[in-house]
């Protein structure tokens, strides 16, 4: 292949990527703007709160409790190599709150909520339900996307807070039951060590990840191809995109909060 052709190919791929990025950004801005412009659909919003927030609690609780427990074991084992076993409460707390809580919850939301939003909206699209909404004078962006995005924006930080606490509790349980830590001292060390910025960063990450998860579900659902295959593809792409973007955003936000 000649260098020119290779360059042209590279240029085309970059342009396609930029175009997709531009479309997603425009979609996100449009979707967010509908959150603030009437008409509002409180019933749809309430349903979204239930599905995205409340019903995600079990999976969030289970993933974070095991993560917190494993984290305590690893830190203990790693710390033992240079006689620093005592740092388990502090590192579990910082690891869960700053990093693993938001990331685990974000990824579980991508798996659970992004996929279901994408599949639901894509199915509505291929069965002409979105067209039907339009003919019934209802804006699909207001009726379908705005309530879901707003609900994710509100509930995912709350889920992260719950996940942080349960994760720390998992670490606490393992440390006090198996590793011989004193319960009262463990809790005191945890509470003394965490700073407000740790908690703020955790919640901000939660809000960002929630928004990414909901927007990706809506975007890929709304742009689904035709038929069952279209729905399948939209769902798969939405989860991939949400997971990658959540991890990328996590990196950026961690940089913003802790290295500036």
């Amino acid at each position: 292949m000649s260098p020119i052709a290779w360059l042209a190919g590279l240029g085309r791929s970059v342009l396609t990527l930029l175009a997709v990025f531009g479309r997603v950004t425009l979609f996100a801005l449009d979707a967010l703007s509908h959150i603030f412009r009437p008409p509002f659909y409180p019933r749809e919003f309430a349903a979204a709160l239930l599905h995205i927030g409340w019903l995600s609690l079990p999976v969030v609780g289970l993933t974070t409790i095991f993560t917190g427990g494993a984290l305590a074991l690893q830190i203990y084992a790693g710390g033992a190599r240079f006689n620093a076993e005592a740092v388990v409460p502090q590192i579990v707390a910082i690891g869960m709150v700053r990093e693993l809580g938001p990331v685990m919850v974000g990824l579980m939301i991508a798996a659970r909520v992004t996929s279901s939003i994408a599949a639901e909206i894509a199915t509505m699209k291929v069965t002409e339900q979105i067209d039907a909404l339009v003919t019934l004078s209802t804006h699909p962006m207001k009726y379908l996307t705005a309530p879901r995005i707003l609900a994710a924006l509100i509930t995912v930080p709350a889920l992260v807070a719950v996940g942080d606490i349960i994760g720390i509790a998992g670490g606490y349980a393992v440390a006090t039951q198996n590793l011989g830590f004193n319960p009262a001292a463990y809790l005191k060390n945890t509470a003394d060590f965490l700073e407000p910025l740790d908690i703020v960063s955790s919640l901000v990450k939660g809000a960002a990840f929630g928004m990414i998860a909901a927007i990706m579900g809506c975007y890929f659902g709304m742009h689904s191809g035709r038929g069952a295959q279209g729905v399948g593809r939209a769902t798969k792409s939405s989860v991939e995109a949400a997971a990658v973007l959540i991890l990328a955003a996590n990196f950026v936000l961690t940089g913003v909060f802790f290295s500036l």
Partner: protein
Amino acid sequence: MIRMENVHKAFGDNHVLRGVNLEIPTGTSMVIIGGSGTGKSVALKCILGLINPDSGKIYVDGQDAATGDRDAFLAKFGMLFQGGALFDSLTVWQNVAFRLLRGSLKRPVDEARAIAIEKLRRVGLKPDVADRYPAELSGGMQKRVGLARAIAAEPEIIFFDEPTTGLDPIMAGVINELIREIVTEMGATAMTITHDMSSVRAIADNVAMLHGGKIRWTGPVSRMDDSGDPYLDQFIHGRAEGPIESVR
């Protein structure tokens, strides 16, 4: 009055509409016939703006459909989709009363429900289907729920995409009568797509035949039988031989 002027629409290299010109006077019933896949549904969706035509103009009551207030424009319309397009997360009555439960036409819930049940009755469905979900109904029942939803807010212009396919002959007769009634009593403008020639005769004031991306023939239903157009003749008599190829 709805007017389509030289409307073109292609999907990739599939040129579906190649210059459609059609006029539907206010308060009349137009029936569109034509082979499967000739673009009848696409034509209706172009008027509603669900599909953007590649070129050409569409006017509704003298107003260019592509410009102006979308909400006011859509408020005039009701549409029955070929596949029903019922919202499967809502019950039957909530589907029918969709417009009456939100937005500018919002009514109290009891009133909306009562209207929904009345519209269901008009399409031959009993009140006990009101609280069921669309997936629990037969195909023909879903179609009729879609019809009830299209007429629930008493729109000025109603599009019916194959209202009687999947219905038994008696039910088809009821629906034909209902469409006729909506046009004569409520003064609505109706545009119906159907493959059922007895429906055509029951519903239509005017008939248009779509073939090859254009309106092949249009005129009053009374002139349909002596049009002298070989395409139309072949179509209404359902003959395999003629100018329209039967294998496409």
